[in-house]
């Protein structure tokens, strides 16, 4: 047990200390994690921690991230992106690979090695770029969308690359590999072994890997692959609802998390077995589920894991930098890294122009994707294992990849501090305004929330409904209402439902404590959100007022008044008289409520609050006196506008 506890603690403490500092300095979480990794590297080496395996494991965070990205993307939007995806993405990979190949050949490398290097370095870091774009809220911008298209294409491009590379094996290197045995693949320089990226075709020294397609003829392989993808789509489309419905019966919070994880891991596993990139598979699954009512539930379950694993991954990248080798070849490595960044950025800028990405977006695109990415680690070890690139070259390239990743946060900072202020694009901002409609979150879709939702939607307002009963949700969704499954009091679910951009939240759940809790949470953390709160009774009103809502409606009050009025009418009182009595009663009650609320002390039981007791007794006595006719005011108000006949003449 201690074997895992100590490294775990070291990683956690490094992250917990480094990232808030980095955020405070405006450097972003990615840089924080990377630096934390560098700092703890000596400690890890002393303890003999296998950073490579940990990185392997942590790469799953990238898989999860792409699942979450898919969840945000509706199938329609994905289809609309196909031009950018294939055009921008395809050209980026091709042109960059060729450009790097050209440079490598100019430095005397044979063309097969040069091409391999080109392919390795053409890919960018999905993890860093997407994480940073999300943090900065730039995913929806033109630059963000363009970057995303390219990254997605790169993910797809890995597959043909993995097929192509073994064909470029060089006989000389194969002999070398035979001499050195399994040594070559053991990149202690932070190179992952790419199990998470599906390279189990040949050459891997890690024993027999599972595969559904090994040994099958080409056409059968393609068939199995397509079948697997189809299965994922079907699973998402038809099995999610019954699955969650089944799990709900146990009524245990952690089972939902387990189910979500099971889905993501299962899909990733299936993809690996057919040789596809698991990140691609989970992305597709996410897209399929983007319209599901469980979307927010899935998001909030997976998000913390993704966050932690990605953080861990970045730390392992930082920890994996071989500083000895680095300082031995500092000049070379730095030159290559900077050269690579400049070259990639140039290609990206040219493409941005060609595809009409302008202004600040062009810079975001160009600077953001200019690094080499974690796929580079994967491909490098793969190429060495397949005798495509010599170990020595690979070692240096590993440093280049890692270093370029380390420098990326710097580029984003440059973008933030230098580019954005200079090129603040007014028209781009106008677009944002149209995009950001005021949203209304309705917590609870029962007797209260359901009706409110209808009222608001009839007026054309956009609402997001959260409810905790899947059977209820099915019925609601059948009527075309956009509803999501989950416990509205969970901060992560609120976040997934968009509380940051919300205008208003209507708290219509029926649990007294939860209503207060939710009111308090939203009032504290999102003061810009207008809170309408459902109160169970009078005392609850006082609590909710103290919690921060200024629009509190007692759930049975209005109905009760109507019942009272109805009763009066049934007893023979003229309807209009009954109406006036009811209105007067409401006015009195409201005035009493205000008086009592001012002496109510949260946390103090009523019978121990002398001011409250005294005020209560006084109000009750006044009411009784008025009802008995001892005080003229009450009846006088009823009579307003009606003149008593007098025997004296009027003045």
């Amino acid at each position, binding site marked *: 047990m201690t074997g895992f506890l100590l490294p775990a603690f070291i990683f956690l403490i490094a992250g917990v200390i480094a990232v808030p500092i980095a955020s405070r300095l405006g450097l972003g979480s990615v840089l924080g994690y990377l630096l934390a990794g560098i700092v703890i590297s000596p400690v890890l080496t002393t303890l003999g921690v296998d950073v490579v395996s940990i990185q392997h494991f942590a790469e799953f965070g990238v898989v999860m991230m792409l699942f979450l990205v898919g969840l945000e993307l509706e199938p329609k939007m994905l289809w609309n992106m196909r031009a950018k995806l294939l055009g921008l993405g395809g050209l980026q990979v091709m042109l960059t690979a060729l450009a790097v190949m050209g440079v490598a050949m100019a430095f005397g490398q044979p063309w097969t090695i040069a091409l391999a290097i080109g392919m390795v370095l053409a890919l960018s870091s999905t993890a860093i770029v997407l994480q940073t774009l999300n943090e900065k809220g730039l995913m929806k911008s033109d630059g963000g969308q363009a970057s995303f298209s390219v990254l997605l294409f790169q993910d797809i491009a890995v597959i043909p690359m993995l097929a192509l590379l073994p064909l470029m094996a060089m006989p000389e290197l194969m002999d070398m590999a035979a001499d050195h045995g399994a040594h070559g693949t053991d990149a202690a320089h932070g190179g992952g072994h790419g199990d998470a990226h599906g390279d189990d075709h040949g050459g891997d020294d890690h024993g027999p890997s599972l595969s559904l397609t090994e040994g099958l003829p080409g056409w059968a392989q393609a068939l199995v692959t397509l079948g697997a993808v189809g299965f994922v789509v079907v699973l998402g489309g038809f099995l999610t609802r019954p699955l969650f419905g089944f799990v709900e019966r146990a009524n245990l919070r952690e089972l939902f998390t387990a189910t979500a994880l099971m889905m993501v891991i299962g899909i990733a596993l299936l993809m690996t077995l057919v040789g596809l990139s698991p990140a691609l598979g989970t992305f597709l699954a996410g897209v399929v589920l983007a319209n599901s009512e469980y979307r927010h539930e899935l998001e909030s379950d997976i998000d913390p894991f993704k966050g932690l694993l990605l953080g861990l991954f970045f730390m392992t990248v930082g920890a994996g930098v071989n500083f000895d080798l680095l300082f031995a070849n500092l000049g070379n490595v730095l030159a290559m890294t900077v050269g690579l960044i400049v070259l990639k950025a140039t290609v990206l800028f040219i493409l941005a122009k060609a595809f009409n990405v302008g202004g600040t977006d062009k810079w975001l695109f160009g600077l953001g994707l200019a690094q080499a990415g974690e796929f580079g680690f994967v491909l490098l070890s793969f190429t060495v294992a397949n005798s495509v690139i010599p170990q020595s070259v690979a070692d240096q390239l590993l440093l280049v990849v890692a270093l370029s990743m380390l420098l990326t946060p710097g580029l984003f900072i440059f973008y933030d501090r230098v580019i954005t202020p200079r090129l603040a694009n007014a028209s781009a901002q106008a677009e944002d305004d149209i995009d950001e409609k005021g949203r209304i979150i309705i917590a609870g879709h029962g007797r209260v929330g359901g009706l409110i939702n209808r009222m608001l939607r009839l007026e054309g307002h956009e609402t997001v409904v959260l409810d905790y009963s899947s059977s209820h949700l099915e019925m609601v969704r059948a009527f075309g209402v956009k509803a999501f499954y989950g416990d509205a009091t969970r901060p992560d679910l609120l976040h997934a439902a968009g509380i940051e951009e919300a205008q208003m939240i209507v708290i219509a759940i029926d649990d007294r404590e939860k209503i207060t809790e939710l009111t308090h949470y939203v009032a504290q953390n999102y003061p810009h959100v207008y809170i309408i709160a459902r109160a169970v009774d009078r005392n609850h009103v006082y609590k909710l007022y103290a919690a921060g809502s200024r629009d509190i409606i007692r759930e049975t009050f209005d109905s009760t008044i109507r019942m009272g009025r109805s009763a009066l009418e049934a007893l023979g009182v003229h309807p209009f008289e009954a109406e006036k009595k009811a*209105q007067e009663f409401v006015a009195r009650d409201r005035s009493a409520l205000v008086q009592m609320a001012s002496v109510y002390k949260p946390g103090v039981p009523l019978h121990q609050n002398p001011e409250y007791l005294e005020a209560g007794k006084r109000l009750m006595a006044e009411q009784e006196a008025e009802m008995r006719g001892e005080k003229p005011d009450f009846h006088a108000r009823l009579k*307003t506008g009606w003149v008593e006949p007098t025997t004296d003449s*009027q*003045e």
Partner: protein
Amino acid sequence: MSKVLVYYAHPGQNNSRVNSQMVTRAQQIEGITFVDLYAEYPRFQIDHVVEQERLVEHDVIIFQHPIHWYSTPALLKEFVDRVFDLGFAYGIGGDKLKGKRLLQAVSAGAPKEAYSKNGYQNFPLRTFLTPMQQTATLCQMTYLTPFVLYDVLSSDILAQIEAHANAYEALLIALRDDTFDEANAAKLEYFEARDVAKLGKG
């Protein structure tokens, strides 16, 4: 300086072209109180205590409203019924409104020509305002000449709206600053935007 209180009564504000412009101007003026009756009492639950206090505090009361069936919108009638009590507005001890001024700022759908013996409305507009005038008189208030914009349903009116709103603003300011020529205004049956310039110099 007089304290001016504007009561605005309009049940269909979303469709208003004229009154909405007048309201924008009125709300900008410093030192006047503006009350949107249909906003305060959307369920017609007039609080006569609050309103009586409000009336007592002010010197000039303006009723701004469209003419609905030769009268005020329903809520304004309810307002007068509820608030102008025996013992407050009239009768023994009912002198709380004494000496205050009442002015109606109205918009009429029909053209000026219609409001005459020979027109299809058969009577001048002033005739239809008689009930309110008498109400003021009984409550010992001074009923000022009404401020009118005719023909508001026509398409041509758009050109006149701004002038009317500007004049309304000038009128309110004049009433507030006591520069309104009440004597000369009293000689007229009604006055319009173009008359305000002259009357505002008193």
